[in-house]
């Protein structure tokens, strides 16, 4: 237990550092992120460019710092919105049952049958590029796993004795949902959300790469990854640097999420276990 605590603290510290650096990017970036210097194309790391430069001679570190703002905010917002929408729909399904459940579950199935990326592409193509349409595309395609999870768990909780007990003593459906059902969903949904965050971080990049997310010269981690790909043999850091940042952020969020899920489940553990 003690060891896990340290890992979580470390993850939180690393994530905080990255977020802080990204927020302070305009002030701490060594170069303007879009500044080209064709004389120094694909330069290796040096004192002037800590992480080297890309194929247009732009400073990789500056571009990572700038790109993080877009990547992380879209991924975080999309995770939050899909989570809220999915859990809401899942609970509605489980509580209403009947045709409401049937309709929502089938809609879910249909969305799951379509490739996520194709639907997202369609939406972005129809509504135009930028932050808003991209977020919408990710939310529309992303709520399904949350809804499935929430529906199954809500069904399960609703069948437990204490929900019957609450109904018998006259508790309102609202009370049952907020005090009995939602707390039981918290831990698994948190776990799912942290996994989805990493996945969305990549999706944002993929859409940007296809020209549907950020528009050049603005940067984001996914599009940097994609843009550096043809030059991987000459400047491997162009891929490694944004890749590692995506990996680190996703890992940190997952670690923190696991700890949070563990804490959400703590009241269920036996007292002596919770103390350890």
């Amino acid at each position, binding site marked *: 237990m003690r060891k896990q605590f340290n890992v979580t603290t470390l993850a939180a510290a690393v994530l905080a550092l990255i977020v802080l650096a990204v927020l302070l990017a305009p002030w701490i970036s060594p170069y303007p992120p879009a500044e080209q210097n064709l004389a120094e194309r694909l330069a290796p790391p040096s004192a002037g460019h800590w992480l080297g430069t890309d194929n247009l001679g732009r400073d990789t570190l500056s571009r990572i710092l700038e790109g993080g703002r877009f990547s992380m905010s879209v991924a975080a917002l999309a995770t939050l919105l899909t989570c809220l929408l999915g859990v809401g729909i899942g609970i509605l399904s489980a509580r209403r049952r009947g045709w409401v459940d049937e309709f929502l579950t089938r809609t879910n199935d249909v969305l799951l049958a379509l490739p996520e990326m194709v639907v997202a592409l369609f939406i972005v193509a129809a509504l135009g590029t930028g932050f808003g349409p991209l977020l919408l595309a990710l939310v529309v395609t992303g709520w399904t796993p949350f809804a499935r999870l929430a529906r199954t768990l809500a069904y399960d909780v609703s069948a437990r004795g*204490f929900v019957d*007990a609450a109904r018998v003593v006259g508790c309102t459906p609202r009370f049952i949902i907020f005090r009995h059902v939602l707390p*039981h969903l918290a831990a698994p949904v948190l776990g799912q959300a942290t996994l989805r965050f990493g996945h969305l971080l990549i999706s944002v990049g993929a859409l940007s790469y296809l020209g549907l997310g950020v528009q050049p010269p603005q940067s984001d981690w996914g599009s940097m990854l994609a843009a550096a790909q043809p030059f991987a043999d000459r400047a491997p850091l162009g891929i490694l640097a944004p890749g590692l940042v995506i990996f680190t952020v996703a890992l940190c969020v997952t670690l923190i999420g696991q700890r949070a899920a563990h804490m959400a489940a703590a009241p269920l553990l036996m007292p002596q276990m919770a103390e350890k």
Partner: protein
Amino acid sequence: MNPVNAGLVLDGLQVGHKTHDGGTSGGPLLSDVSLSVEPGEFVALVGSSGSGKTLTAMSCLQLLPPSLGITGGSIRLGDLDLTRASEHQLNSVRGGRLGMLFQQPKRMFNPNRTIEQHLKEPLRLHAGLRGSKARSKALELLEEVGFADPAKGIRAYPHQLSGGMAQRAMTAVALAGQPGMLLADEPTSALDKVLERQILQLLDRERRERGLGILYITHNIASVAAYADRVLVMNAGSIVEAGPAGELLTRPRTDYTRELLAAARLAPESRRRPPSRERDILVLDGVGKHFGSRRKLGHAALQDVSLTLKRGEILGVLGQSGSGKSTLAKAIVGLEAASTGSIFRQLDTAGPREGTAVQLVFQEPHSAFDPRMTLRTSLQAPLRPSHDLSPEQRDERIAAVMAEVELDAALLDKRPGQCSGGQLQRATIARALLLEPQVLICDEATSALDALTQRTILNLLLRLQRERNLSLIVISHDMDVVRYMCDRVAVLLEGRVVEVAETKDFFAAPGHPHSQALVQASIPCRADGLWSVLDVAKP
């Protein structure tokens, strides 16, 4: 001695909490437990819940939870010391030489596997049977444990079996490995009397025919009196008394044993009330409940049930597992709408809310509370809808009902996982009382509790009934409970009421053939006359 039929000997067994570094912390949970079971012997281990009975059985199988460990003593099966045996040796012992019968068969089966698959596993591992040989042996076993149609039963998944059938199937699985020694951990406490008797008779036959040694863990003294050769009494992790069944049950030496025996004897004489002249408070008229879609009426759980309940009366509803008892309770309380018929409530106008004047006490106290909430939060919930209460008034009301059910107010800040079954059942009653109900339905309210706790809860219910002039519906499969509590008895069979009678008349001369079977089954048969000495459940 035949190596398969070797005796089980525990010598000075000690079990405690393990710490990370392999040491122990806290006091021992079992201390100096010594016992032996010889082949062909039926030994009963009795004690109230939490006394360490199940822990003893799990130690024998070396299946203790990871946080616990054996800290001293030895467990020998024949010449093998189980505490020192390798995992490989243990695997051949578990389910092979040493069988185990669990308390809740449905939870011990894998829901994704058929009974056949469950049976074939021990047959392959311990008897070396495969394919069609294993199948025919499995059918044989099922027939032996009383499946009327083994060919159908073998294809069933656990959820398709009733509680009694599942326990029989579990017994078949336990016997499939041809064990010489069987640990039976409350194998019948979830079953009704008829099934209980069948399972115990089955075990007794195995004992006589094959020399099966049985360690029977139970809190049901009546069954001990009927079947056990020797009795061990356990309290707080150690054995406090041991001796031949007849001697120990008739002349207990320790106070604890006396208390335990007294609790088992729910003397019917303790309560006799004249028939109530009060008015009817609840009238059920032709109530039916069908499961299935609206257009096609499915399985009928209740059919044409007509009953009345007078004010201040205690009505018993008897029936076997699956007879529709719980569905009836849910219909009366309003958790499930009846498909046909009607339920009239003629309540006093004084009640705070018409909807909550009929309250339910649940069978499984641990599932009746949200494991995340403290008891205080759970008890506050019923008072939330009435906004006219200030937080202080609310806390006062809660403190008052807690006192009424004799619970310490300090318990309010605990979570269900930290409370015992008895405490939680009192808390369930307290929660029901908060709403000042006029009718209280107890759905097997004490069948998950040990005899001592059961008795105190029943007496609590009787006192509340007297003080508040409550009407009670006591739903049970336990004849003793119904006779102890009730003024009138209704018998449910396959969703129909087949008999309603005054308690005294019912037990003296049950009318319907099914009632006769129920009354008869509550007296286990054993020729040696021990039953009449103990006089536990004789009508």
